[in-house]
Every structure is written in structure tokens, then in C-alpha cells.
């Protein structure tokens, strides 16, 4: 069966510091991968999606970037965090047929 991991689970970072969040998927190959952000009490905003290694599409201009160095690894990064980057970051994967997205446990980021 497939599983999706995210780490860290929680993170407190000062403004201006760098960020690296990691997501890995097991039990499938060539998944579509997604990064979402959820602000407190809000819905989900799609940040990035990837259909293959090195292929990243960005949905909104922002202070963040994403990379996919391996088939089942997706990384979210920032060079300098802003207060507005605080939120709950969720990674998800889907296959190429039904496209149902399966979400990881999330990383709760607080920028202070």
C-alpha cells in the first residue's frame, strides 16, 4: 500500500530564516505531487504541483519554491521566510487515472 510522509511535523522559524520541508511517497511510482498551504481556519491553496522529476508548476507567485529531485520526493523551500508564510503545509500525491489526492500528515509552520 502507499504511504506519504512529511517532516518535520511542526516548525517554528524566525522571519528571514530559510525553510526546507520534505515529502516522500512510498509504494507507488511516478506519482503527481502537490504542495498546499492552509491558513488558520481557511481552505487549501495549491502552491505547486509536479508530474515528474524536475517538472514543477507554480500556481501562485510567492516567497516559496519547490523541487522534485527524485521520483517520490518533493521539497518545499524558501530562502527567507515572511510572517505570512505561517500555516499548515500539506503534501499530497495522486496517480494518473482517478486523480484522487491523498494527503500527508502535514507540517505546521509558525514564523515569528
Amino acid at each position: 500500500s502507499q504511504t506519504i510522509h512529511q517532516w518535520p511535523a511542526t516548525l517554528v522559524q524566525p522571519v528571514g530564516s530559510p525553510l526546507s520541508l520534505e515529502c516522500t511517497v512510498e509504494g507507488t511510482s511516478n506519482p503527481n505531487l502537490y504542495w498546499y498551504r492552509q491558513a488558520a481556519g481557511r481552505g487549501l491553496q495549491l502552491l505547486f504541483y509536479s508530474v515528474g522529476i524536475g517538472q514543477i508548476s507554480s500556481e501562485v507567485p510567492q516567497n516559496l519554491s519547490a523541487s522534485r529531485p527524485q521520483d517520490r520526493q518533493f521539497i518545499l523551500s524558501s530562502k527567507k521566510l515572511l510572517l505570512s508564510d505561517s500555516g499548515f503545509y500539506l503534501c499530497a500525491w495522486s496517480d494518473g487515472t482517478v486523480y484522487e489526492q491523498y494527503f500527508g500528515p502535514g507540517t505546521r509552520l509558525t514564523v515569528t
Partner: protein
Amino acid sequence: ELKVEQNPLFLSMQEGKNYTIYCNYSTTSDRLYWYRQDPGKSLESLFVLLSNGAVKQEGRLMASLDTKARLSTLHITAAVHDLSATYFCAVDIANYGQNFVFGPGTRLSVLP
């Protein structure tokens, strides 16, 4: 601009009652998904609706899709406390999984 709307946004209901959550969207799509989120947790997939007239049921929840009306419903039958959560609908506006747009969520509270 694509809009995915849900109503109500907040719902407080008594155990044993029935109610319906509505999800309206403003663009053509044949794919709609429902998710559940418990407080502080990730999203859990509930239903995948892939064509006009699709109906899925699981326990006390039933979801349907009317692509012509651009409307999906999530019907709750004889609510129990365990159903308390936030429910999100998501529309696949690209129809191939690369761009999900989520509604704002409906926060359901089932009271004894």
C-alpha cells in the same frame, strides 16, 4: 475567475437529524472530490465523483454530482457526534488532476 463555494460554512446540528451541504462551482468540470478534516489533522478522502449523476454512499454520508448545474451535495443522514469535522469539496478544473480548487469548507458540529 474560478469560484468554489460551499454552504453553509458553519453547521450545528443535533444527533439524529438530516442535513445537506452544498458545493457550487463556476467552471466546467466532471470531477469533484469530498474530503474530511478533523481539527489539527490532515485531509481524508471521502468521495470521488467522476461523472454527471454520480452518487456515492458511505455509512451516513451520501454525495452526488450534477455537472450541468455545477453542484455537488453531501447529505448527512441521522447525524452522530463522530461526524463532527470540517468538510471540503474540491473541483478538478483541469480534469486531469493538475489543478484542484478547494471550497472554503463547512465546519460541522453534531451536538448530543
